[in-house]
């Protein structure tokens, strides 16, 4: 009976969503010029007339100048998604970091362990030895991912997760391994604090919170796009510390 009701409700939901689908433009058939993303792609946000945009009457045709130029006014991110995440909509990312921070904090508060929980399983010798070789490489790869976030796909969150994967591997390979909560807590706290401080510096220098106050450089170079790689490094380290802390909490018990 319960199952029947569930099927009916789920079918009703699917029907509702499908009928709502009529208002969304068809799959793959989108006019980017009517969306703000066209300006993100062209990097001409600061030249747009915001008032006209808000009133939905200033949608000029776009030209291709200045996109790839040597002197880019907006930012030098080759990866437009990164430039949205860490520059145009950086405040969302601050919120996102905070969600993860809250979740890690919550897992710590809920499970609240101080001692390694032992499962009494002895990992394989090959696995243990290869872990020792792999862990530094994994951490290096994670760091590569977040440092190059503005050039290639990836960025702070996957990079941090890869670093946390190294911690997970260590937990699986070694029954004794236990990260101290003090170190991960200090790292995530200080990195989060530095992110907010970078935002406040922007407020002090440029007048806007999270303002990109550094020179942007040339598109495609490693040292480019102002505070973007710096912020992504903060995020990467913070996420890595946070998720490692989360994994530590899952492996711990009260003692």
């Amino acid at each position, binding site marked *: 009976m319960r199952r029947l009701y569930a099927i009916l409700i789920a079918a009703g939901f699917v029907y509702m969503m499908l009928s709502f689908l009529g208002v969304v433009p068809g799959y793959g058939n989108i006019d980017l010029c009517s969306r703000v993303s066209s300006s993100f792609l062209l990097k001409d946000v600061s030249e747009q007339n915001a008032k006209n945009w808000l009133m939905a009457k200033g949608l000029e045709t776009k030209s291709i100048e200045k996109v790839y130029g040597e002197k880019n006014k907006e930012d030098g991110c080759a990866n437009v998604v990164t430039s949205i995440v860490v520059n145009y909509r950086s405040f969302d990312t601050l919120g996102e970091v905070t969600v993860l921070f809250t979740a890690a904090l919550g897992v710590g508060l809920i499970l609240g362990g101080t001692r390694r929980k032992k499962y009494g399983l002895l990992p394989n010798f090959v696995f243990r030895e290869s872990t020792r070789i792999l862990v530094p490489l994994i951490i290096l790869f994670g760091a590569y991912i977040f440092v190059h976030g503005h050039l290639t*796909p990836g960025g702070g969150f996957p990079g941090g*997760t890869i670093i*946390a994967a190294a911690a997970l591997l260590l937990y699986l390979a070694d029954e004794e391994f236990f990260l101290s909560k003090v170190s991960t807590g200090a790292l995530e706290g200080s990195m989060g604090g530095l992110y907010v401080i970078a935002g406040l510096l922007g407020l002090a220098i440029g007048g806007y919170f999270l303002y990109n106050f550094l020179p942007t450089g040339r598109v495609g170079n490693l040292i480019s796009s102002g505070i973007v790689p710096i912020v992504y490094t903060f995020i990467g380290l913070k996420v890595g510390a946070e998720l490692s802390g989360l*994994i530590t909490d899952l*492996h711990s018990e009260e003692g």
Partner: protein
Amino acid sequence: MMTALVVLAGAIMTVAAVFAVEAKKILDSVIAMSVVSLVSVFLFIAMRAPDVAITEASVGAGLVTAVFLVALFRMKGGDEE
């Protein structure tokens, strides 16, 4: 070609999702859920979203599965008793 692959991916995701919901053992459920996530990575690539694909593969499919498995391991099965 691409459409056929997307349809195939959709079919796999649907089957895996139904399996994840209906499976008797939680462990099967978790694995089926990670299959849904992994196939969605293919969809993201098909829709030209490499950033999202990398993030979903590492964070969505990898980490969530790991966290669930560790939690499950801690609970020793979850569906016994």
